[in-house]
């Protein structure tokens, strides 16, 4: 019962926010456009959070996704300009997108390899790579952005009135749910996070599976970064500063445990939406973005507190 409530709680909070806002601001909040807007704003963090969920379930953390995103955008945009000139179109954009995503994958692979081969704590490795990735993206074009005016399909294009980025997020989220539920890899991710030693003794190739988790997280960060780049039609070397914390917050609000073994994709999606609707609500109510930060901070702490309380309650009954 407790477990059920625990999983349902973020969802109930999300519904609560939507209901309250619908009552207060029915004209501006409760519109198709606003919902689409909120959803598409949450896609960048949301896609990164899918990978972060896997990382956190393995009892790891990836602090580098924000900086990695900036680097992916920069490398991707550089490739577009290198192939298609100052105003790249068509083919150049596609190749650039691929290059950007590949950059993320390679960065993720590097994180994974450092963590597993050198047996270093993920926190330290990704703290280091976060700094390095940020530095690289600043060095690339001497701190200046790359403008790609023609690159708007991912950020603001639409398929049947639904923004492309939402479609991509939905597809990836669906794939992630399937991965956790129906693949051996998904199962191994939980096992490694719950008890690495035990997973190893049960024949799980821990290093390989962990490296794969960080690599896929890099890949997802790359996809998210290209959406972010397309949204602003330019790659900023300073893009996504602090984004990793929003992403981690979404995963944690969704019920994942930083000590590993617990977490779901559905929870993460709800966590992401919760933050987005909260931000949107604040915006519509005219609450300044500075106050927003306080509100979101309070929500994170409240979510984890409630989670801890329900968990310790179920523990006090003996055996």
């Amino acid at each position, binding site marked *: 019962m407790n477990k059920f409530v625990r999983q349902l709680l973020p969802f109930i909070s999300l519904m609560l926010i939507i209901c309250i806002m619908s009552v207060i601001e029915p004209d501006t909040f409760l519109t198709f456009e606003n919902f689409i807007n909120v959803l598409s704003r949450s896609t960048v963090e949301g896609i990164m959070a899918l990978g972060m969920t896997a990382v956190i379930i393995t009892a790891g953390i990836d602090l580098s996704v924000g900086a990695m995103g900036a680097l992916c955008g920069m490398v991707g945009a550089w490739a577009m300009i290198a192939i298609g000139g100052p105003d790249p179109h068509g083919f150049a954009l596609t190749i650039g997108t691929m290059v950007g995503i590949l950059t993320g994958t390679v960065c993720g692979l590097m994180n994974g390899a450092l963590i597993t081969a050198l047996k270093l704590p993920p926190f330290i490795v990704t703290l280091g790579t976060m700094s390095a990735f940020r530095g690289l993206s600043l060095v690339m074009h001497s701190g200046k952005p790359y403008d790609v005016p023609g690159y708007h399909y991912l950020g603001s294009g639409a398929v049947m009135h639904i923004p492309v980025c939402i479609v991509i997020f939905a597809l990836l989220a669906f794939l992630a749910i399937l991965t956790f*539920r*129906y*693949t051996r890899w998904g199962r191994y991710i939980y*096992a490694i996070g719950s008890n690495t030693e*035990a*997973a190893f*003794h*049960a*024949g799980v190739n821990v290093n390989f599976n962990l490296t794969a988790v960080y690599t896929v997280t890099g890949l997802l960060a790359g996809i998210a970064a290209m959406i972010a780049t397309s949204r602003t039609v330019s790659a900023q070397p300073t893009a996504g500063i602090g984004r990793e914390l929003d992403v981690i917050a979404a995963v944690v609000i969704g019920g994942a445990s930083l000590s590993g*073994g617990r977490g779901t994709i559905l929870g993460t999606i709800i966590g992401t939406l919760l933050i987005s609707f909260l931000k949107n609500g604040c915006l519509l109510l005219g609450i300044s973005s500075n106050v927003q930060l306080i509100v979101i901070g309070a929500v994170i702490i409240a979510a984890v507190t409630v989670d801890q309380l329900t968990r310790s309650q179920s523990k006090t009954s003996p055996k």
Partner: protein
Amino acid sequence: MIQQELNENFRQAALRMTGISKCFGPVQALSKVSFQSKTGSVHALVGENGAGKSTLMKILAGVYQPDEGTIEIGGKMCRFEHPHQALDAGISMIYQELDLAEHLTVAENVFLGNEPEGIFSFTINKKAMIEKTKDLAQSFNFEIDPAAIVEELSTADRQIVEILKALVRKSQIIVMDEPTSSLSEKETGKLFDAVRELRKQNISIIYISHRLEEITGLADDITILRDGRVVHTEPASKLDIPKIVHYMVGRELNEFFPSRSIRIGRPVVKVENLSCGKLINNISFEICSGEIVGMAGLLGAGRTDVARTLFGINKKTSGTFELDGKIIEINSPADAIKNKIAYLTEDRKKTGLCLHLPCSWNITLPNLASIGMKNFIMPKEEQRIVEKIASRISIKWSGPDATVESLSGGNQQKVLIARWLLADSVFLIFDEPTRGIDVGAKKEVYTILNDLACAGKAILFISSELPELFGITDRILVMRRGNLVGSLRTKQTTQEQIMHLAAVEK
């Protein structure tokens, strides 16, 4: 005269718990339990897991509050709302999982939260702390260096640190919960000397253990709990192991081990000159199909290292390993599992189970590929397979989705056994499979082992408990300091002979 006798009784009963009852929801954990322990005596508390020993002790320590009943300490009625109050009343608990600050010294641990003041009230007089610890240790004949870092101490010495901690707080009653479960024979001896010293100095010890042999040797009185009730209390001198087991389970000891009709086949496992660094040295042995081979030895003799090397956790440095007539190279547990080798590790919580994942996931973890789920899982099919295997060894759970941590120790062990049954291994290594599980579950484990042997599996059974080795094996290998020093037919040897081989240098 009568008055004097009364006084005598009064002095003797350090602790008297009367009519203690405790419910957890619908579960009656304790019903009208009465228990007393005298000053300067060791009172053993035994019972199967779930019999209520821990609940009773947690009530004594103020962790739980009883629904009814009273606690008297030294003749004074007490009521503990909080563990601090119990501590102040002179009750110390030493739990199985010791909670010491590993990076601090012995003296710092002993005085933790109780430090003698230095020049200022917020400084610590380290010298006084070390001196006092030394004096205290000496007055009880404990040999321990107060300046040693706890991390570097053996488990027995850590127990002694815990005891010193209790003594500093002037505890009159010390409760020890399974203190020897991870101690070697020699360390156990050391701990027992300490306990006897405490008894001599009029401290009363309540001692919880599954190891009945040690209880009969150490305790003055024994109280046996079953299903939340006291079934028997008697001086230890009047009880023996078969009687205790009888009270614990209502069964006799000779029904304890399954009868074996041995049909030993061809050799399945052939290990030749296996070495692994300094851990094990030139080990050679064979195990036939249908044979249960025991492995005896003291803690640190290298028994677990043999298992770890065979299973690919440790890299072997030389030697060959033949399974079913084929020489195999094992470099990781994954290799071993592919070759149909199973290893039930000695520490189920640390290296066996993913405690907060569902039982079914734990059971199928190493087997996903072999039950036709190469890369994709079919939950329904998985559930069916798991339920089938669980009913075969009657695991008690609320369902395959229950988390492993919600099960009792015995059932947790059965989840791991189910895992290896499902793997359909040819060669199974069981490392201390009955450690920390209750008598009833032990019996079931023996039956499963026996059934596996009857089905033609080769089994290596590592155990520190000689009676169970004698009860179930066909042959016993003896290890000492990384060497194999004996291979004996179980029927033609004695416990004394095995102990001699294991413990005595030639």
